[in-house]
C-alpha cells in the first residue's frame, strides 16, 4: 500500500517535472515576448506622444471639446490618453502573442478575436474623434452665423447642431464596434425623430406669428428697418 502511494506520488512529481520542463521554456519565451513588447509599447507611446505634440493634437482636441470632457472626468489630456491607449493596446497584443506560445487550448480563439477586433476599435476611435471635431466646428459656425444674423435662439440652434452630430457619430461608432447595433439604430432613429417632431410642433404652434411677420416683411416691405439701422462700415 505504501509502495503504491510512493509510486503514484513519484509518478505525479515526475509528470509535473516533465510538464514544467515542457512549459518552462515556453513560459520564458512568453516572458521575453512580454518584456520586449513592453519596451516596444513604451517606445511607441513616446513616439505617438511626440507626433501628437508636433501635430498640435491637443489644440484640435481642445477645439473639439474633448479636452473639457476629459478634464471634467478627471482624466489626463487627450495626447496623454491617446499615447497611453497605444501603449496598452500594443503591450496587451504582445502579452497575448506570448500567451499563444504557451499553446493553451481554448485561448487561441480569444486571442485571434482580439487581433481581429483591433482595426475596428481603431476605426471607432477615429470616427468618434472626428465626429466630436465636426460637432464642435459646425455648432460654433451655426452659433456665429445665428448671432450675427440676430437670430433669437442662437445658443439653442448651436446645441441642437452639436447634439445631432454627436448622436450620429456615436451611433456610427457603436455600429463599427458591433455593439448593440440594433439598439443604437433604434435609439438614434427615436431620438432624431423625436427631435424633428418636437421642432416641427414647436415651430408650427409657437412660430405662427413669427412666420406671418416674416412673410409679411418679405412680401410687403423691403426690410426697411434693417437698412436704416445698419451702419456703413467701409
Amino acid at each position, binding site marked *: 500500500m505504501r509502495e503504491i502511494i510512493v509510486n503514484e506520488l513519484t509518478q505525479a512529481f515526475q509528470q509535473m517535472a516533465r510538464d514544467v520542463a515542457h512549459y518552462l521554456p515556453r513560459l520564458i519565451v512568453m516572458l521575453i515576448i512580454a518584456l520586449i513588447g513592453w519596451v516596444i509599447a513604451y517606445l511607441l507611446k513616446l513616439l505617438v506622444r511626440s507626433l501628437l505634440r508636433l501635430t498640435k493634437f491637443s489644440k484640435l482636441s481642445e477645439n473639439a471639446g474633448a479636452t473639457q470632457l476629459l478634464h471634467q472626468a478627471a482624466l489626463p489630456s487627450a495626447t496623454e490618453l491617446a499615447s497611453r491607449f497605444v501603449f496598452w493596446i500594443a503591450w496587451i497584443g504582445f502579452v497575448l502573442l506570448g500567451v499563444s506560445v504557451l499553446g493553451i487550448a481554448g485561448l487561441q480563439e480569444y486571442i485571434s478575436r482580439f487581433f481581429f477586433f483591433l482595426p475596428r476599435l481603431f476605426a471607432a476611435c477615429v470616427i468618434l474623434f472626428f465626429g466630436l471635431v465636426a460637432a464642435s466646428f459646425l455648432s460654433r459656425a451655426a452659433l456665429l452665423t445665428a448671432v450675427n444674423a440676430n437670430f433669437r435662439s442662437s445658443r439653442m440652434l448651436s446645441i441642437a447642431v452639436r447634439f445631432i452630430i454627436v448622436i450620429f457619430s456615436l451611433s456610427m461608432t457603436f455600429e463599427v464596434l458591433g455593439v448593440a447595433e440594433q439598439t443604437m439604430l433604434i435609439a438614434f432613429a427615436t431620438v432624431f425623430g423625436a427631435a424633428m417632431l418636437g421642432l416641427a410642433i414647436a415651430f408650427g404652434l409657437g412660430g405662427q406669428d413669427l412666420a406671418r411677420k416674416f412673410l409679411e416683411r418679405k412680401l410687403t416691405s423691403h426690410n426697411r428697418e434693417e437698412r436704416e439701422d445698419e451702419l*456703413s462700415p467701409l
Partner: protein
Amino acid sequence: MIRELELAEENLLTDEFLRQLINIGEVDIVVGLSTHNNAKTIRPVIAAIQAGILKCFPRERVAIINADGGSQDDTIEQVKNASIDDLRRDSKVYALRTLHSISVRYSRIPEPSKALQTIFAGADLLRARTCVMISPETITIEPDWLQRLARPAYHDNFDLVCPIYHRRGFEGVLVRNLLYPMTRSIYGSRVREPYGSEFAISGRLVSDFLSNGIIDQDWGRMGPEISVTIFALTGKYRVCQAFLGTRPPPTRSGQDMVAAVRRTVGALFASLDGNFPVWSAVRESQTVPTFGAASPVANEAVRINRKRLLDLFADGVVQLGPVLSSILSPQLLAELKRIALLNIEEFEYPEELWTQTVFEFAASYHKSTINRDHIIQALVPLYRGRSLTFITENRDASDEDIERREESLCVHFEQLKPFLLEIWAERK
C-alpha cells in the same frame, strides 16, 4: 517678354483676352473696372472715366480693362459699347489717341482677387506706367477723380495713390475705428483709407505685386484691395493719398457686415503673419504726402437705432461667451461682460478696451486658437458695440471733434503696440 508670357500662362488669361491686349499694344495708363451685374451704374462711371481722360490725359495712350465675374445683365455689352465719341460731341476737347475699351469674363462667379489679378496682368502686359482702379458702383465719381488719382503716380513717380473720401454722417465706421488706426500703428504709415475701392498704382508696383504672388497668399485672396496697400507699405514703395469726393453708401445688411469685416480685417490680420519682421520693427507712424484739399463733411441726419446696436453687442457677448473665451484673456472678457450689462445711456466701449480687444483678436488669429474665420466672425458683435460708442460720442460733434477723437484712438493703437508684440508670442 518670357516672364510676361509665363505670367499670362500662370494667370490662365484667355486667348481672347490676350488677343485683345496684343491688338492694343502698349499704353500709358490702364483704368481697371471689376464688375458683376453693374449694368445700372456702369454707364455714368464709364462716362466720367472717359471725360476724365479727355480732360486730363488727352495725349496719353489709355485703355479701359473690364474684368467681369459672370454678370447676368448687360454690363459687358455696356462697357464694350461705351464710345468716347458720345463725349466728344459734347466736349471741345479731343483725345489725340484711340481709347481702347476691352472686357474679359475671368470667371462665372465674382472673385475680387482674380479680377484684380486679371486687370493687373493686363496692365503689366500692356506695359502701363499707371493703373487706376475704379469701382463700378461709385456713381458719385467725377472726371477730376482720374486726374487726382493718376497724376501723382504718372507724373510724380508715386507707386500707390490711396483715396481720401468725403465721408457723410457716420460712414466708414470700420475704417475709422479699426482699419486706419491699426494699419497706422502696425505698418507706420498714416494712410487714411487703407481699403479703397478707387486707387492708382504704378507699373513697377503692379509687376512686383504679381511676381511676389501676393494674390495667392491668404491676405491677398481675402482682401485684394487692402493687400495692395499693405504690400506697398511693407515694401517701402512711395505712397501718397489724394482727396476725392463723396463715396456712395454700399449696400447694407447684416450679412454684408460679416463679409466686409472678413474682406478687410481678415486680410489685415492675415497679413501680419508673413510681415512680422517688417511691422515688429516699426516704432512710430509717419505722415504720407497728401494731394488736394478736404471739403467739409456733410453731416446728414442718419437714423440709427442705438438700442438695437446695444442689443446686438450684449447678445453677442453673452451668446458667444465660450467662443470669446478661446480668443480673449479672462480679464478682457470679464470687462466686456460688465459693459454688456450697462444701459444705453451709460454704455461706453472705451478706446483702450477696444484697442486691447482688436490686438487680442489679432494675436489669437495668428495662433489660430480656433478656426480663423470664426475668430473674424466673433469680432462683428464687438465691433457693433464700438460703433455704438462712436455714434454716441460723435452725435453732436463738429468735424474737428471727430478728427480729434479719431487721432486719440490712433494714439491708443500706437501706444499699445508693445502689448500686441508681447501677446503675439505668448498667447496659446
